[in-house]
């Protein structure tokens, strides 16, 4: 039987990923070959890649995850749903009902946080799923991991504010390493305020307790014409100088669209 090697990188995006998906969905199940890839080192990027992999599975597949060549875990999935997560060194009972998403999320987090080179190999699952097997959707997993919300809220705010921003700094991790655009004279102010906002400037910390992984921010009027907006969610953040009226309207628009 002809074997079709599907080697689209798990982190591929845009046209390359779409091509891979179309090719995969168009391939008869019997010809689907093993698919393997090395996942990124960053735990968050690993989770993203695993969720993407599960989201692309229709027919039952078993995914073997190896760390530095040694088997770490097995996942099984079908119909874009995760059916099981078995960590080899720590076998546990199969979760069911309301706890399934959080239990699977905890196990995926443990897998993603394991140091070493993580490789993923998926193949057609020989055992057909039983009708009463509990499974978990990728959407539920994203919610349990705080993944979708984290990405969408701050990205959406950035997308809304970018077209009207006089200057803008957005970052993942360290504002000092963030992406700046706009009038250069504002950069220092954006960085300084971002650090104070994040409680990293050696003064009284802002240290607000974010509600259940949701975005939060403040807008400070600088003059009758301009405001500075600072927002964050997890390790992502945004600082922007905006026209006064348009900036405040953008916040309400962001809330309305959420």
């Amino acid at each position, binding site marked *: 039987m002809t074997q079709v090697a599907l080697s689209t990188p798990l982190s591929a995006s845009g046209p390359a990923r779409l091509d891979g998906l179309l090719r995969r969905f168009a391939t008869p199940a019997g010809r689907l070959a093993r698919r393997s890839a090395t996942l990124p080192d960053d735990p968050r990027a690993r989770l993203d890649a695993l969720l993407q992999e599960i989201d692309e599975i229709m027919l039952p597949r078993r995914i073997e995850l190896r760390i530095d060549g040694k088997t770490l875990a097995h996942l099984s999935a079908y119909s874009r749903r995760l059916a099981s997560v078995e960590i080899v060194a720590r076998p546990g009972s199969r979760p069911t009902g309301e706890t399934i998403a959080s239990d699977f999320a905890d196990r995926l987090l443990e897998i993603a946080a394991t140091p070493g080179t993580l490789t993923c190999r998926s193949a057609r699952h020989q055992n057909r799923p039983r009708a009463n097997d509990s499974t978990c959707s990728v959407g539920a997993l994203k919610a349990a991991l705080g993944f979708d919300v984290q990405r969408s809220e701050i990205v959406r705010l950035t997308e809304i504010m970018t077209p009207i921003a006089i200057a803008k700094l957005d970052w993942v991790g360290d504002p000092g390493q963030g992406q700046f655009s706009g009038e250069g004279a504002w950069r220092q102010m954006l960085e300084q305020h971002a650090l104070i906002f994040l409680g990293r400037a050696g003064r009284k910390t802002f240290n607000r307790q974010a509600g259940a992984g949701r975005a*939060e921010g403040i*807008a400070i*009027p*600088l*003059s009758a014409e301009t405001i500075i907006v600072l927002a964050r969610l997890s390790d992502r953040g945004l600082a922007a100088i905006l026209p006064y009226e348009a900036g405040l309207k953008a*916040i309400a628009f962001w809330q309305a669209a959420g």
Partner: protein
Amino acid sequence: MTIKAQLDQLRETSFGCVLTAFGDLSSGLILRSSSETPVPREVLDALCDDATRSLAVASRHTRPDATAASVYGTSVVSFTAQRSHVFVRHDPEAGDLICAVIEKAQAIAPVLQSARETAARIAEAGS
């Protein structure tokens, strides 16, 4: 006009505003509030706490050159996807504070302007 009456007026004339309050930043206490239904003390304490931390980001000691001295540090809008909190004081050194809580997606600028006017009236009455 009493402070309570000023707070009632601010809330009733500001579309989407569900709570207004007058507080003292130095003691960290909300002294008066206005809302349609009673608000637990813990909520008011959390509001004052939010004001203290939010205004600290716009401390006068950090005022950049490109900002207006009469504006910077007098007001801050704290926001989440669910609501906005407007905090206003008459001048950057003042301890008296006006708070207004606005439900999500409602216009912020008119409430901010009305809160400034309320803060100015209360400061004028107290001087």
